[in-house]
């Protein structure tokens, strides 16, 4: 009988295999998914409509991406149960963009050239949208984003890019400015992140506030790497009536806590964008200071905030509880204010496919798809549009909808005002329909 000593390298290799197998078995998703599923779908006699889903599974957008993906899956399931799109089942082909513009462009190329999807939708972060859009335009494939940024409506992208399922930041600010000025105060100080998302707020708020007779007392940009905020609070003018904040990211709870310590019981009115607290439980320790302050919401997180049968169906199909968290895990708080855009965009695709007679990828059917979508005037409220009715402006490829203002009331959000769709409109600055297809 021979004996063999196991070397350290062999032991490490074996351990690597065991760990790898373990990861495969217990990972958040099975290790087989998209690649093999695509083969099955391609061979399916159902002739499915393959929709590319560009999603932030990794990188700083992953919190949103997780809920974006759940929403897309729920919408696709619902649509398939009701007969699909033009009688064809929908199949989502997902591709992670890593929340990175470079990888986002690769995802567009991969979905188009390798996976041969019919069209692409989904992505959120502005830089990924802007980095990916040129490739979508060059590959001449419809690219429908759910990102809120003003980049689509501004005309800086191309004719293949649309944002039909969610309003942009400029529209949101246009809609809510007058409520803030009339109800909270006219002397406003803005605290915002020192990057593009914050600049949209800075630029469009300033213009809106001036027209309403308000003044922006001070602009306080916070660098994205900042972890402590107290040093910025001394720059808030003493006569500030409204402190407008739109902080994003993991530093938000610290920001609120330090804000509370700085002001104590005497503070100006606080108004924030819910982006600051998306995915965050309002009952989290340190957020008590927000009690009585106001937030903008695109879609109310707490059940009853917009009490329609469509909203209830949407919430139920997503598996979201009355407090806006996963029904299976109360600690898993959703990005409820924004993710309806994913659901609604899939229904816009359904409507456009059915009205344009779209059959397969190619210049002729894409032309019909794009021109049909550009002709839409809006979308009626319904299961496919639970957030409310939308106006769609074809020349800027942008949807406009109603907005909500909520107050923090005993550690939850209570809607106190709903704007009209028309409140969010602004004069278009571009016209994509003049670009050649």
């Amino acid at each position, binding site marked *: 009988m021979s004996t063999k000593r196991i070397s350290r*390298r062999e032991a*490490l*290799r074996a351990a*690597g295999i065991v*760990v*790898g197998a373990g*990861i*495969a078995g217990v*990972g*958040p*998703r*099975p*290790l*087989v*998914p*998209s*690649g*093999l599923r695509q083969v099955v779908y391609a061979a399916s006699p159902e002739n499915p409509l393959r929709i590319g889903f560009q999603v932030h*599974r*990794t990188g700083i957008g992953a919190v949103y991406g997780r809920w974006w993906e759940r929403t897309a899956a729920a919408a696709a399931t619902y649509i398939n149960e009701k007969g699909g799109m033009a009688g064809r089942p929908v199949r989502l082909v*997902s*591709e*992670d963009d890593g929340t*990175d*513009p*470079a990888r986002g*462009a*690769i995802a567009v*190329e*991969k979905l*188009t*050239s*390798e996976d041969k999807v019919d069209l692409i939708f989904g992505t959120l972060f*502005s*830089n990924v949208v*802007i*980095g990916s*859009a*040129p*490739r979508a*335009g*060059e590959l001449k494939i419809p690219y429908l984003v759910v990102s809120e*940024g003003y*980049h689509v409506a501004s005309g*800086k*992208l*191309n004719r293949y890019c649309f944002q039909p399922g969610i309003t942009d930041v400029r529209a949101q600010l246009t809609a809510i400015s007058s409520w803030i000025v009339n109800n909270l105060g006219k002397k406003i100080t803005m605290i915002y992140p*020192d*990057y*593009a998302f914050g*600049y949209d707020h800075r630029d469009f708020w300033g213009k809106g506030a001036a027209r309403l007779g308000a003044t922006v007392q001070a602009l306080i940009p916070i*660098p*994205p*790497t900042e972890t402590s905020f107290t040093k910025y609070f001394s720059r808030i003018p003493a006569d500030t009536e409204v402190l407008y904040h739109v902080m994003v990211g993991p530093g938000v709870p610290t920001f609120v806590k330090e804000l509370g310590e700085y002001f104590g019981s005497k503070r100006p009115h606080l108004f924030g964008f819910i982006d600051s607290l998306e995915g965050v439980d309002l009952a989290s320790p340190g957020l008590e200071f927000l009690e009585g302050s106001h937030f903008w919401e695109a879609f109310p997180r707490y059940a009853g905030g917009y009490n329609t049968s469509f909203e209830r169906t949407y919430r139920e199909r997503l598996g979201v509880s009355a407090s806006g968290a996963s029904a299976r895990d109360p600690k898993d708080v959703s990005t409820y204010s924004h993710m309806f855009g994913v659901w609604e965009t899939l229904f816009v695709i359904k409507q456009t496919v059915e009205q344009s007679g779209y059959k397969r990828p190619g210049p002729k059917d894409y032309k019909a798809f794009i021109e049909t979508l550009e002709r839409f005037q809006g979308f009626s409220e319904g299961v496919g549009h639970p957030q409310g009715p939308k106006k769609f402006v074809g020349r800027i490829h942008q949807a406009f909808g109603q907005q909500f203002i909520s107050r923090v009331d005993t550690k939850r959000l209570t809607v106190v005002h709903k704007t009209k769709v028309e409140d969010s409109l602004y004069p278009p600055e571009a016209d994509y329909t003049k670009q050649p297809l």
Partner: protein
Amino acid sequence: MRGDHRSAIVAIHAALIAALVCLQVVVPPFHHMLLARIMVLAAYAIGYNLLLGYTGLMSLGHAMFFAAGMYGAGLPLFYLGVGAPEALLLGIAASLVLAVVIGALTLRTSGASFLIVTLMFAQVFYLSTLYFNRITLGDQGFVLAGHLPPISLGALRVTLSEPVVRYNLALATFAVCLGISLWLVGSPIGRVLVAIRENEDRTRMLGYNTFAYKLLALTISAAIAGFSGSVYAVITSYVGASFAAILYSIYPLVWTLLGGSGTALGPFVGTAVMTYTIETASRFTSSYLIVVGVILVALVMRFPSGIVGALRQRWVPWLP
């Protein structure tokens, strides 16, 4: 020994370029564009390798030079409507000037200090791209599509958005950078750089101005990074602050170490292997970064001197 194998060295590198020339007519569209990206990013890694692999200076700030090339080319294209050739030259010039100024300061340090100081300068550059957002458009960046007029070559008008033009522009970039790298490491200057890597004090004692040589290495390395950055902007039609972030300083380090630090072909092999590992793994699992991490760890454990480095150690000791 290398002198005896000059023909073989030329043949191997020429064969790679020839293979890349031929590949463009057989690969599917996705891989066509992916290969173009790999070649430009490999050129970036080649520049990085001149500093790390041949001079022994580990920088964590090279994204600054890559992005300087991007903005140096992209801003004049976007705002001034210059032509693409002029824009590429301006991109190289921007990174070159930046390298001379930053190098004069950072090269007063060495080792871990050099790494930290370059990281700090790169962070300043990154935050500046955000701070001057009215010009750079911050983290959102800007699109160059529509700002790239065709280039006239005699009677021929070359449109940069054509896949074949992009591929060959990327190939030319890679070939030029590989050629510069090969020439430099085989030249007396390259020998001095290797001597600095092995023992800077002894090199100085022999009479060489090691500071000047290190500054030269950094400048050439940064110019190559800027060249690749400007080409990357042109072929992808996008310029944004994320390319100045630390991730794009870590990438060339990983590509170089994986392919083989101090080898001429290592940066290309490392860039290609890592890119295709990510692409392949992401087809089968959404947890692809874990798979990529495990594979990279296994490769580094198996080949501590990188893939090409291991080839050189075992079979072809004359490989540059």
